[in-house]
């Protein structure tokens, strides 16, 4: 939120303290964030644009990019639907077991991604609970696309719901109640009242979930099987190329992920700016009314 207070010095520390602290923070940020980010692009490009391009159009790299996009394209709609449904239920209704549901939604944040992957190996692996049945019916879950999707859905599960719950709670259910009193159906209420109110928060959650879905390493690594050109996502492909001393290839693929991160940041900032504009507009209309 932009503060409305005019420029007023609120700190009382001596200028040199302030400058030293700011300087330290800047040095830290450049060492921890900016230089590594720069180095990814430097390593990817310092042997020439041609090699960089060749590394990206190589068939295994293309397959990895394709798989990453497919996984995100499946995982995101799932998370979108369930995230909105969960947030809606939690924010607008009172029911038994609500806090348990909130805890469950947070679980993927608390569990290490490697453990998340292992959970699916224990369930669907050949030695796992359902392994034998799956093998008899010739259904492949882990070491195939479904397993990768499952692991990705698991780790990205909280993003949409976590983003929406506080937003919806803050908005309360007055508008929905008004709509219902005026004769709207539940679906109409959601579509014309709730959704417009949460659309920016929703988009924000989806963007974050997308970044995580495309960048996830640990959980996916456990269930992937690392078959080249088939079950390697971009992050896994980066590791394998690096281990094969193919540094240009590894950093070229890494630069794709870095670009995605930068794009995510840009969209995120835009959405934050829009939300702020909307909040200001809301406040203005509220004071005028």
């Amino acid at each position, binding site marked *: 939120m932009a503060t409305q207070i005019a420029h007023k010095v609120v700190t009382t520390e001596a200028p040199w303290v302030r400058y030293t602290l700011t300087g330290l923070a800047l040095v830290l940020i450049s060492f921890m964030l900016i230089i590594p980010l720069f180095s990814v692009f430097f390593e990817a490009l310092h042997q020439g644009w041609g090699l960089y391009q060749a590394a990206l159009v190589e068939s295994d790299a293309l*397959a990895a990019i*394709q*798989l990453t*996009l*497919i996984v995100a*394209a499946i995982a995101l709609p799932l998370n979108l639907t369930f995230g909105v449904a969960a947030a809606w239920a939690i924010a607008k209704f009172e029911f038994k077991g609500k806090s348990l549901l909130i805890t469950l939604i947070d679980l993927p944040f608390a569990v290490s991604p490697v453990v998340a992957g292992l959970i699916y*190996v224990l369930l*669907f*692996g*050949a*030695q*796992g609970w359902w*392994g034998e049945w799956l*093998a008899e019916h010739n259904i*492949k879950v*882990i*070491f*195939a*696309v479904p397993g990768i999707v499952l692991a990705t859905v698991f780790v990205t599960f909280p993003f949409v719901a976590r983003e929406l719950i506080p937003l919806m709670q803050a908005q309360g259910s007055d508008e929905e109640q008004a709509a219902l009193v005026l004769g709207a159906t539940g679906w109409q209420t959601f579509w014309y009242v709730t959704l417009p109110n949460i659309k920016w928060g929703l988009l924000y959650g989806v963007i974050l979930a997308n970044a995580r879905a495309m960048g996830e390493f640990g959980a996916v690594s456990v269930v992937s*099987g*690392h*078959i*080249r*050109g*088939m079950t390697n996502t971009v992050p896994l492909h980066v590791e*394998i190329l690096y*281990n*094969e*001393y193919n540094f240009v290839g590894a950093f070229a693929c890494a630069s794709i992920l870095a670009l995605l991160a930068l794009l995510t940041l840009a969209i995120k900032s835009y959405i934050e700016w829009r939300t702020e504009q909307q909040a200001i507009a809301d406040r203005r209309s509220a004071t005028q009314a």
Partner: protein
Amino acid sequence: MSKFKQIVLAISLSGFSAFSWADTTLLNVSYDVMRDFYKDYNPVFQKYYEAKYKDKLSIQQSHGGSSKQARSVIDGLEADVVTMNQSTDIDAIVEKGRQINLGWEKKYADEAAPFSSMQVLIVRKGNPKGIKDWADLIKPNVQVVVPNPKTSGNGRYTFLAAWGAALKQNGGNEAKAREFTRAVFANVPLLDAGGRAATTTFMQRQMGDVLVTFENEAEMIAREFGRGNFEVVYPSVSIDADLPVAVVDKVVDKRGTRKVADEYLRYLWSPEGQEVAAQNYLRPRNAAVAAKYAKQFPPIKLFGVAEFGGMKAAQKKFFDDGAIYDQISAEIAKKR
């Protein structure tokens, strides 16, 4: 909206095209440093296979640490063949997953290991620390780079090589061998998880004075980092690292690929397959090929894991939890 649907359809179709196949396929699950060999071997075999059977064959590959890969096969990764760097990884699949039948090592010649490698010492250009043999690794100012024997076959072979060399030096005195091996590992500043990571530590990060790794890995280093940047030192005696292969019975029976999987492995012993091995600095079994490439394989006195009663016995004696390697690590940690 229809445009959106078209895009979704296009994406999903292109996705399926990547995962469906018309030809015969084979999945070879291997360990990371073998990629270079199979990259050369697969086209040679494919050409042979297509000429013989008039059928297209596509070969899928999966790479990672040897034991991790074995674990994936146990958990259901549908490998038609596994090509590992030690027999214990294949034994693990036999015991824990039962996807491979007992007696796999008798199905092919040479205990089902089509070629072998050995542990060599890689030192910096000009050999500034004057490292000539195992005994030089325990000098106080020498830093040794070795992957962790607990997690990598490469590290296990190095441990056994040092132990065996010390045994030979001291007329079979186990206590002396233990002391020597401990001294070697006391000179290891950090243990990487796998052979590739150890190479990166030594060559990329320039840590340590000597890297102990497979002979064929030395050739990879030469290709990647340039021949002038290091020297290979052959110790007076080293360990013969057999690199075993096996057909995964359960998978090939289910997929109906036994014949092609068997042929894929059998062809490794053919003169053509052995030649590709020699070109990748893997010591061939075929006498004619060995003679042709004799120059790049200096004759070294070798001992096998048979010296320790086989890899399984060695695993139990040295590398299981609480066994000799763990005891030695604890002693080193205490001294520091």
